């Protein structure tokens, strides 16, 4: 089962790219997709989807990565359909249960969720094809100038690493507590709201206590391995290779082409 944002080992041109190139491309694309005209957003999104498929992302994985956002996507769409500011500017509004909606509202809703979908695909493409350590190294690389301002860049990188490491442990802990509760006769799905809230609060408290205890132990273990705040070196060596340059050129070329088309439409 794929969890949104997890890294999946694989092989493709996108996997081999320098993480800095991928990070910048994802960042620029995310701004670009929110800024450009709808028609250009459609073409850019299709281009991204094709790149994602070529890069090893299957439609199933894309579907799974979007799954946690369905409710959010539906809400955005409904809000645009019924409460669009431009209601009535396009085709005549239709009234349903005293709420009016129009084609303009539908169109706006569609473009917003399309852009949102493109953002998720770009993020998934980045995180699925880049090992966390590579991603952290890339973030650290771009934040390096902040060291001069005494920003704790290396500490931030360690914090991200620990957060990624602890996330599955927390989920396991949650499952363990839920199983223990079921084993002792809790029938959550069929219990009342008050019981559900009580059980939720009790579980959350237990998980939080466990997290603090574990955080203490991990801090001690890190200290025992000579961890101190400040500069650290890294196992990951970032080096642009010959396969990165054509991709950088290709991305820049398409970026300027799309900017030009976008200006033309404006």
């Amino acid at each position, binding site marked *: 089962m794929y969890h949104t944002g997890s890294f999946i080992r694989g092989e493709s041109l996108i996997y081999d790219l320098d993480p800095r190139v991928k990070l910048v491309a994802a960042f620029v694309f995310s701004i670009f997709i929110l800024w450009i005209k709808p028609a250009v957003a459609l073409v850019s999104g299709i281009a991204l989807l094709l790149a994602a498929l070529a890069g090893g992302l299957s439609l199933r994985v894309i579907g799974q990565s979007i799954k946690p956002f369905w409710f959010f996507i539906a809400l955005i769409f409904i809000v645009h359909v019924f409460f669009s500011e431009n209601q009535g500017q396009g085709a005549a509004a239709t009234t349903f249960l005293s709420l009016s909606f129009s084609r303009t509202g539908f169109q706006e809703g569609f473009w917003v969720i399309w852009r949102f979908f493109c953002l998720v695909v770009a993020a998934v493409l980045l995180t699925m094809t880049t090992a*966390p350590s590579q991603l952290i190294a890339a973030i650290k690389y771009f934040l390096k100038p902040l060291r001069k301002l005494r920003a704790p860049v290396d500490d931030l990188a360690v914090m991200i690493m620990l957060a990624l*490491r602890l996330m599955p442990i927390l989920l396991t802990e949650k499952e363990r507590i839920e199983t223990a509760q079921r084993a002792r006769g809790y029938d959550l799905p069929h219990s009342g709201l008050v019981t559900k809230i009580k059980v939720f609060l009790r579980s959350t408290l237990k998980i939080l206590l466990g997290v603090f205890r*574990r955080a203490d132990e991990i801090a*001690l*273990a890190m200290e025992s*391995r000579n961890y101190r705040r400040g*500069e650290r*070196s890294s*196992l990951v060596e970032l080096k642009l290779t010959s396969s990165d340059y054509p991709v950088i050129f290709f991305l820049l070329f398409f970026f300027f082409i799309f900017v030009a088309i976008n200006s033309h439409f404006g």
Partner: protein
Amino acid sequence: MIILDDVYYKYEPEGIEALRGVSLQIRAGEHLAVIGPNGCGKTTLIRHLNVLLLPLSGTVTVGGLPAHNPKHQAVIRSQVGMVFQNPDHQIVGMTVEEDIAFGPENLCLPTSEIKARVAEALSRVGISGLARRNTENLSGGEKRLVAIAGVLAMRPRFIALDEPTAFLDPAAAQRVVDIIEKLHSEGVGIIHITHNMAEAALAQRVVVMREGRIVLDGRPTEVFARADLLKHMGLQLPQITELLLEMKEAGFPVRTDIVGMRAALEQITALIGRKQD
């Protein structure tokens, strides 16, 4: 050499006196087992060796460097590696190689050196094939080996292990014991906390702790010869020693200062007057 001189430590705010005047010398390359009932101060003791704790009174010196001096603490932590009881509390990397690299990264070593040390540590504990595996998907035994490799990557002169075989199945536990023996044969000093007396019997020296004090210190044969005291403390003897004691009680003329399987076998076969080919 590690020297503890009259070390006293109390946990606050509980006020639990964990170490009460502990003095101990551990030679380079020595294999020392620390045994004792729960709460006797074993873990507190080894946490002093890695400067995770500093004595409230008394001194700890590692390789001539006093642990109290903050300037020496990084060097001491590199010299005395620490393997925690629960590897899940020690492993910080997403993948095995990332976790093993954590220590060398903290030493600010160049990437090429970190890679060399990771490869070396993996090979020393025999898990080179796990380098790219996600640490979350490892078995309990594999996690222990990763924790040991993570410490070895710092190239320590001593390794302190806190119950490294706890909660492992016999095969995984034996694998960890074999690695410990191998590291000792390579010259790494071992400080091994254990409740398993057969493991303690493999050490060159056994220290028995009780209520924050060292009550026995000697070769395994000397320590396990004090069966009454150990049993009074709620500790078990190695099964071999137990067997020989039972035989002696039953009237057989056997020596009871034996902890090894081979020596015990020789005793018993000599007694029954025949040897198997």
